[in-house]
């Protein structure tokens, strides 16, 4: 029985005839910044969905610090301390920034309410660089600012494992630097983070270890530089000629 922060054992997800995740296993240690990478369609987001409970695995097990979470409904998994952001940012349009962030704090395992929750929300908004904009309607914010709100919301639940689904996608170079800095900052406080990413610079600079998926299977695992030099990985991304 491993006490890794998150352990995935032989996870499978089948949609009718399509096997999106095929017998994938890996472990994420406490406080690690873990990358989940692979070409488009490799099943990375599906894997993340299995962990967060958005989808139920058709096989295999997922454990959070030894406790089984696969098969539980998403809200149960959230209450055990798993928080996530989404590939296409999902902010709550009719709530302001502060209320968006409070959402994470009120129903997570901390169950804060009232003034306590508001203070935490404001502190987190400061932290992600949105200080002073607590009452701004999120629908009026720029894309990167909405992403920041989503990150703050995820952090508000004080998660044991934070799942970032292509959080750095769609950012221009300067926004990207800011974003990488933010994630670094969050990692520094000891949080366990699993990042699905396409932006290779980010993976190289942020992640300790990573797993590469292709067509639903795990094709490599290990330190970032060794994984990215692996000929199988290169072949998966660029095709046979460049391996």
């Amino acid at each position, binding site marked *: 029985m491993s006490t890794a922060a998150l352990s995935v054992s032989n996870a499978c997800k089948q949609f009718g005839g399509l096997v999106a995740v095929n017998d994938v296993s890996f472990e994420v240690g406490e406080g690690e910044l873990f990358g989940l990478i692979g070409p488009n369609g490799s099943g990375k987001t599906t894997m993340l969905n299995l962990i*967060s*409970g*958005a989808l139920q695995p058709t096989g295999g097990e997922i454990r959070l610090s030894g406790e089984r979470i696969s098969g539980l*409904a*998403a*809200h149960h998994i*959230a*209450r055990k301390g798993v*928080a*996530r952001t*989404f590939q296409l940012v*999902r902010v*709550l*349009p*009719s*709530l302001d920034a502060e*209320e968006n962030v*409070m*959402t*994470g704090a*009120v*129903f*997570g*395992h901390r169950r804060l*309410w*009232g*003034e306590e929750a508001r203070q935490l929300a404001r502190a987190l908004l400061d932290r992600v660089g949105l200080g002073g904009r607590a009452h701004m309607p999120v629908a009026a914010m720029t894309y990167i600012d909405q992403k920041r709100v989503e990150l703050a*919301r995820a952090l508000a*639940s004080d998660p044991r494992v934070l799942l970032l689904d292509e959080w750095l996608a769609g950012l221009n170079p300067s926004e990207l630097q800011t974003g990488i800095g933010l994630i670094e900052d969050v990692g520094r406080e000891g949080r366990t983070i699993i990042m699905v990413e396409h932006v290779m610079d980010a993976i190289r600079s942020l992640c300790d270890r990573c797993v590469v998926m292709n067509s639903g299977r795990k094709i490599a695992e290990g330190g970032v530089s060794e994984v990215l030099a692996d000929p199988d990985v290169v072949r998966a991304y660029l095709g046979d000629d460049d391996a």
Partner: protein
Amino acid sequence: MSRLSQDELRALGLGAALVVLAALLPLLDQGFYLSMGVNIMLYAALCTAWTLFSGPTHYISLATAAFYGLGTYSVGLGIDILPYPILLGIAALVGAALAGLVGAATLRISGVYFVIFTFGLAELVRQLVTWTQTKFATAIGLYVFTDFTEVHIYLMLLALTALVFLTGFLINRSRLGFAMRIIGNDETVARHAGIDTARSKIVLFMVSGAFIAIAGAITAPRYTYIEPPSAFNPMISFLVVIMALLGGTKRLWGPLVGVIPFTIVMDIISARFPNHTSIVVGLAFFAIVYLLPDGVTGRLEQLRAWLRTRRAAGHVAAVEKQA
């Protein structure tokens, strides 16, 4: 419990004032206007209780007649056996129980199917009650003899309506209310934030069903003779939907804007042109769909927002002119 904001205190104050004003009606008239007042107050209670659930979830429930009828029958069956306040409690419990069952069963069902399900359910309950009455009682109807006058019923309905509003107010300020707002924005985010979306909806539906059943119980003495076609009258469900949607369900007090004029109109139509009631109801549905998708209050809010942007643009233009 956080402190009440200025706006909230003002709303409470206004509400209290309106309740006091409304309570004065029996002093002014004990005939026609009081009767109309009872109708208005009944539908105010029903529509607000309906909106408690159907507003945030956007599920159109036609189960109102089922809850109402069960409340009426609770009183009808128990009036000679148990004291009246206990019957009200039983009505609330029965309404909540049915709502709990229906809620638990229908949360996988969305949109059209939910509407049809609740309509079918109301009809099923009516058929079953009719059948049990014919089989196990000597007559289909029940007699209800009480000392309650129109004044009593009016004041009880007023108290109920006030209670429904108070409950709605408290729910809005609570975790449940916050959860419903989040669910209304994005149910996936809600679930990933730790909200048990199914349970939240069921609880709301149970509260709503309980209040509707109490309304049925309160008005039972008015009928003197209760029978399934009138206690479980499907028109109750349809009228509640129309009035609530006409008023607008974004705010809890939205339906009131629909209740008052529509009850008056329906009273006039059923008195003067009784064969035209269906047509009026049909036209009301068309009005909702084509003209007032968010109800009258929705349109008013749109107007306010439009005026605000006009005024802001006016400011900008004025400033630019000076520059």
